[in-house]
Each structure stands twice: as structure tokens, then as C-alpha cells.
């Protein structure tokens, strides 16, 4: 089990909609959520779940720090200036920068952080996982296939043909 991981808001919201969402804690003891992402969470349903996770010690809200902001801004500028890459927003860039600076995994379904992490030397310390990566870490073979189907049905997140092929999942 990995101890900590930094999560993006959209990733967390989607993951909380998955019927097996609690299984993420088989991989990570604790999820870190940057405070800059908190204004994005407003509904009572999700806030209630977040508060419960904080109470159980499974989620920690990260304070904002200048040194992370500086790195986040550089990533933000690079990604958003590259045609062909999905946009990255400030909170997500902050989460990626925090993860990189502290050698932690970063959880997001946006492709851009993964692309940046492969090529920017200051991001080499970060491993970016998307939902399919986590499902692959959690399940094998037929159970993986079932979990992928359930995840797609619960969250309307779909995985590209190439990714499913790489994961050995045939739907």
C-alpha cells in the first residue's frame, strides 16, 4: 500500500460516485486534497462525504504554499500553451506541482499531467495515475473487467480503446 496520494477534484468526485469507491483505500492510506480545490466542492452530498473522510483521517486538506504556486504556474503555462493537450486549471496544476515536489502520486483523469510528468524534469518525482491505472492496481482479469464496466456505468467515464487494449480488458 502507498501511504499518500494527491487527488484532483474531478477525479475525486467521479471516484466517489463509483460503487466500490472505498477500495481506493486499499491502495492509499490517505488522500491529500489541496485547499485551493475546496471551493469547487459545494453540494451537501459530496461535502458530507469529504467531511466524513477527514473525520476518519482518510483525507487531509493541504494548505496553500508559495513555493508550490510558483511551480504550478510554470506547469499551467506550459500545458495551456501547447495545442493538442487538454487544458489544465490552476487547482489541478497546484495538485500536480505539490505531488511532484513531495514525491507523491497524483490522481487525475486529465491526460495533460501524465504527458507533462513524462517530459518535464522537475516533475520526474511524480507518478500520475488515472482511474484505469487504479482499477488495474486493484483488480485482475475478470474482476478487472467487471470493475471497469461498473466504473464506466457509475461515472460515465470511458476509457479509450487503446488504453483498454493496453490493460488487457475486452468489453
Amino acid at each position, binding site marked *: 500500500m502507498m501511504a499518500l496520494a494527491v487527488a484532483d477534484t*474531478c477525479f475525486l468526485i467521479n471516484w466517489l460516485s463509483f460503487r466500490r469507491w472505498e477500495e481506493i483505500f486499499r491502495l492509499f492510506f490517505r488522500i491529500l486534497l489541496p485547499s485551493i480545490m475546496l471551493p469547487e466542492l459545494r453540494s451537501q452530498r459530496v461535502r458530507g462525504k469529504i467531511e466524513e473522510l477527514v473525520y476518519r483521517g482518510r483525507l487531509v486538506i493541504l494548505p496553500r504554499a508559495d513555493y508550490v504556486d510558483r511551480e504550478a504556474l510554470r506547469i499551467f503555462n506550459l500545458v495551456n*500553451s501547447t495545442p493538442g493537450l487538454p487544458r489544465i486549471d490552476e487547482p489541478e496544476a497546484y495538485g500536480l506541482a505539490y505531488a511532484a515536489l513531495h514525491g507523491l502520486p497524483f490522481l487525475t*483523469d486529465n491526460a*495533460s499531467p501524465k504527458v507533462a510528468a*513524462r*517530459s518535464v*524534469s522537475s516533475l520526474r518525482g511524480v507518478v500520475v495515475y488515472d482511474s484505469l491505472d487504479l482499477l488495474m492496481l486493484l483488480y485482475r482479469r475478470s474482476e478487472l473487467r467487471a470493475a471497469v464496466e461498473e466504473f464506466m456505468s457509475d461515472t460515465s467515464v470511458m476509457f479509450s480503446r487503446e488504453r483498454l487494449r493496453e490493460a488487457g480488458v475486452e468489453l
Partner: protein
Amino acid sequence: MSRREEVTRLAKLLGLELDVESYLKAVEECAKRLEETRELRRRSADWAYIESRPEPLKTALKLLVETGDVKLVSAVTGIPPETLECERIEARIPRLVV
């Protein structure tokens, strides 16, 4: 100026040490995989649900079908990303992970 030169210049400007070749290759691969996602969103969306939503949600969901970018639509419409994510799931607008 070529794309390679542009990215190299930008990385230098930002003080980032970047493997430009691998970056551009990964960007190209990513763009290729994302090419058909708009059509996929249009095909998969529950249009009856979208049309049934009050404004500004209805317009926001249509914008989401076109762009696939929850946070951009949130910034444009003022609807929180979390509300949009939940509405996206209800409206069966797929988010493609590549």
C-alpha cells in the same frame, strides 16, 4: 517558427528542463486519441435529460458535450465543477480517459 522551436523557447522562458522530443510525441499521441471524443459525447449523451434541465444547466451541458471540459464550462457559466460532474454523469456525457 516550428512547433519544436516554440515549445523549446517556452520551456526556456519558464525555466523548465523539458525533453522536447518526448513531450511533442506524447502530445501528438494524446491529441490523436482525443480526436473522436466530441462525436462520442454527442452520440452517448442523454439528450432528453439535457433538454429537461433548467437554464443555465441546459446550456452548460450542451457546452460540455461540445468541449468535454468541465472546468472550462464551470468558469464560463459559473456553475461549480462538482455540480457539473454530477450532472454530466446523469446526462450520460462520457469523459474519455486516454
